[in-house]
């Protein structure tokens, strides 16, 4: 699934490790999500949305990049 996690992370000047630490997951998971190899579960998607202060639909899927 298309997502804009990488763009949001870079806009805040965070590394993948920093984002992983903030979400309490591994760096490999962040890499897999950003590259579209892995679609996170609903709880993780909501945690990502909460961290970036955006609704899930603006971060994942076709909504990505529209309302930023």
């Amino acid at each position: 699934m298309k997502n804009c996690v990488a763009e949001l992370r870079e806009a805040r000047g965070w590394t993948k490790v920093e984002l992983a630490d903030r979400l309490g997951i591994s760096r490999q998971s962040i890499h897999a999500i950003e590259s579209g190899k892995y679609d996170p579960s609903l709880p993780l998607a909501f945690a990502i949305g909460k961290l970036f202060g955006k609704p899930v639909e603006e971060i994942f899927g076709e909504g990505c990049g529209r309302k930023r």
Partner: protein
Amino acid sequence: MNPVLLARVLVVVFWAVGMPLAALSFVAIPRALSAGPLLTRVGWAVVPVLGLLTVILCIRTLLRMDARAGGARFDRQWLGRYYVEILIAFIVYLMLSTVVVTVAPGMRDSGLRTLIGLVPSLGMALIIAVIMRWLRNADEYHRARLLESFAVTAAVTVFWTSSYSYLEMIGLPRLNSFWVPVVMTTTWFVWSIGRAIVGR
């Protein structure tokens, strides 16, 4: 050496040398302790030692490199703890196996001998408990990948063992069931490397 290249080399050495040798210990230890030419027994005894040393060295270096590079907290806690626990569990298993293979054959009471023969299963139960804890503590991405690996490994091991059972029926040499963990580890290694190559 470039740290990224060194890390990749260490991961390959861990999976291609350390883990197969460690898995081969299930076969090597009983052979090292059984009767036979001294040189052959020493050769079998080298297998678990070399396997454990390779595994410890790879893990230690990778964890130190990760700490220096400022790896994610989760990776350090999850993997660091797991590697220490699995190593301890494996050493306990090897020690129990060694004691049983040395002591059990000389015992006269068949009931007690059977009971003592089951002692290494306690070590194996410890290994299973560590793996279950590892799986439970994994984040969702790693849990999904691990479950996929477990499923493939189990399916391929069933395929190999059942296929070879038919070959045994038509005259191929009978193999000890200690070969099963060797087949499982090899399958896990081939699957992990294959997945890394195709970029999944």
